[in-house]
Structures are given as C-alpha cells and as structure tokens.
C-alpha cells in the first residue's frame, strides 16, 4: 500500500493552505475517499501521527468521508453498489454499466484555529 506517500501529500496540502490564511493550528482534516482508491484509513492516521509531529498539524483529527462504489446500468438506468464478484445490474442483469462514484481521493477542507 502507498499510505505513507498519500499521508505526506495530505500533510503538504493542509500545511500549504493553513499557511495561506495564517492559521496557528490545524485541528481537523476532512477527506473524501472513494471505494476504488484503495486507501486504508487506519494506516493514514498511523502515519499522520508520525509525520505531522512538530508541525502545526500535530494532533489534528483526520475525518474520512467514505464514498461507496456506485454503478449505473446503461440499459435500465438503475444505480447500484457492485458486489465483489459481479458488476452486472442486479435489476435487469445487463452487463452494460458505467461507474459513477468511487474514484474520489481529495482533501475537502481543513479546520484551523
């Protein structure tokens, strides 16, 4: 997994934006992470506690908004969460579907003092 690189990026982005507004402390980071982006919350928090030490983001709480995968059937329009074994539409069984949600991987906002 690549959580260390991901955590470092989250810290860099947060510090950059906090500096812009002259914040003294970052208390919270709000992340939006889709199912397909394969990031493990606990690992990111683990690395965060190590690499944020000594910065104004030390002790900040990471909040993960998890976005489940969503697919839309191109035949009947039904939106559904795919299972691990099949991506076909559970309603009309069509295999013609497209992915509508689950790719997200962004820093949505930070809470600063």
């Amino acid at each position, binding site marked *: 997994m690549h959580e260390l690189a991901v955590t470092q990026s989250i810290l860099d982005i947060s510090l950059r934006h906090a500096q812009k507004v002259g914040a003294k402390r970052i208390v919270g980071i709000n992340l939006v992470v889709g199912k397909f982006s*394969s990031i493990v919350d606990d690992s990111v928090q683990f690395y965060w506690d190590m690499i944020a030490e000594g910065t104004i983001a030390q002790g900040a709480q990471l909040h993960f908004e998890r976005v489940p995968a969503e697919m839309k059937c191109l035949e009947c329009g039904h939106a559904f969460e795919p299972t691990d074994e099949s991506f076909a539409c559970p309603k009309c069984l069509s295999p013609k579907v497209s992915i509508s949600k689950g790719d997200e*991987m962004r820093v949505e906002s930070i809470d600063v003092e």
Partner: protein
Amino acid sequence: MTQRIPIVENILSANDNMAGVNREILDHAGVYAINIMASPGAGKTSLIIKTLEALHGRLKLGVIEGDLATSIDTDKAIAAGMPAVQINTGGDCHLDAVMVSQALPSLPLSDLDLVIVENVGNLVCPASFQLGTHLNVLIASIPEGDDKPYKYPGMYRGVQALIINKIDLLPYVPFNMDYFRLGVEILNPGLITFPLSAKTGEGMEAWADWLVAQGHPKDK
C-alpha cells in the same frame, strides 16, 4: 475559534504536477513513453525484451526499470541491447513521478523514440500515480486467473491498452476468457487488447505494429 477552510484538492496533486513536467521533457525530446504495470510474474521484463526484437529496429527503445531492490531487470535489458536505468524504490510499492524525473536524465533521450517504464509489480498502487508517460499499459497473464478485473478495478480502469500474456498456457489453466473480458469491458469500455505470448511470439507483431503507430519515430 475553529474555522473551516475549503480546499477540494486531489490528494496526489503534487505527483500529478511532477508528471506534467516529465511529459514536457519527453515531448520536448520527441520521445513517446509508456508505463507498463502488472502483478509480479506477469512477464513485464520478458515482454519488453521481446518487444525490442519484434520492433525490428523500427523504434529506438530505452527502459526505466522499477523494482523494490536489485538491478536484475536492468541487467537483462542492457544485455538485450537497450539503454536502461534502474530505480530501486527501497520498499515503495509503486513508481511515482519524482522517481521517474530523476531517472530520465540517465537515458539518452535525444537518441530514443520510445521509453518503456516498467513499474513495480503490483496491481493496486501504481494505477494511482501518474508518471508523465503518454500511455498506461497493463499486462494481465493467464495463470493469474480470470477474476482480476473484478478484484483490481482501479488498475483496469486506469490503462489505455491491455496485454493478455501467456496465452500459450490457455489449454492448461482454467481461465474463462468471456468472464475476464466482460469485467474489462465494464471497467474500461472499448479498451484495446493484445492477447499474446511473449514466449512463443504469437501476437507479438500486432502489439509491436500498434506501438510503432503510436510513437513518432525520429527522422534520422
């Protein structure tokens, strides 16, 4: 008092920016680059070496090899007659744009038409990190099984071409090609696919011809 600052920035934006710089360097040198990703053992290195043979000198090829450790792959590439540079990630499970930017100056770009970047063997992480290459290519292989698109959707979504390697093993391994291709089609509709065997050479010509059509060989 706590204040909320909206950001809405992609977590890997720094990597994406560096990938853009790499692309500029490649374009400026007139070099086309592809990023080859696959699980360990899918046949990345042997496919690259066989690709060199199948190109019959139509493109001048250089290689960047990514591995956790060792220079085994680079040694093989150099022995096959290609300029090659090794990146040892020291444990990182993927190449990123910064590693590639550090490797590019070690290749004679002005003499090359095509650079193949061989990513670390892994079906999860490399898909998230753009390198600045023009194309992402995934090598699937028959012994891995037909369920890999369903298990590693991120990887199958992030590529512009798919090689199905080791088709010579189809008679010996349970592999439902229809089930495999259905998963691929959902994740990446219309994805161009090259079933081939780097070992027997079957299908290699189609892949090599397609590569030649993608790149822009330098007029010498």
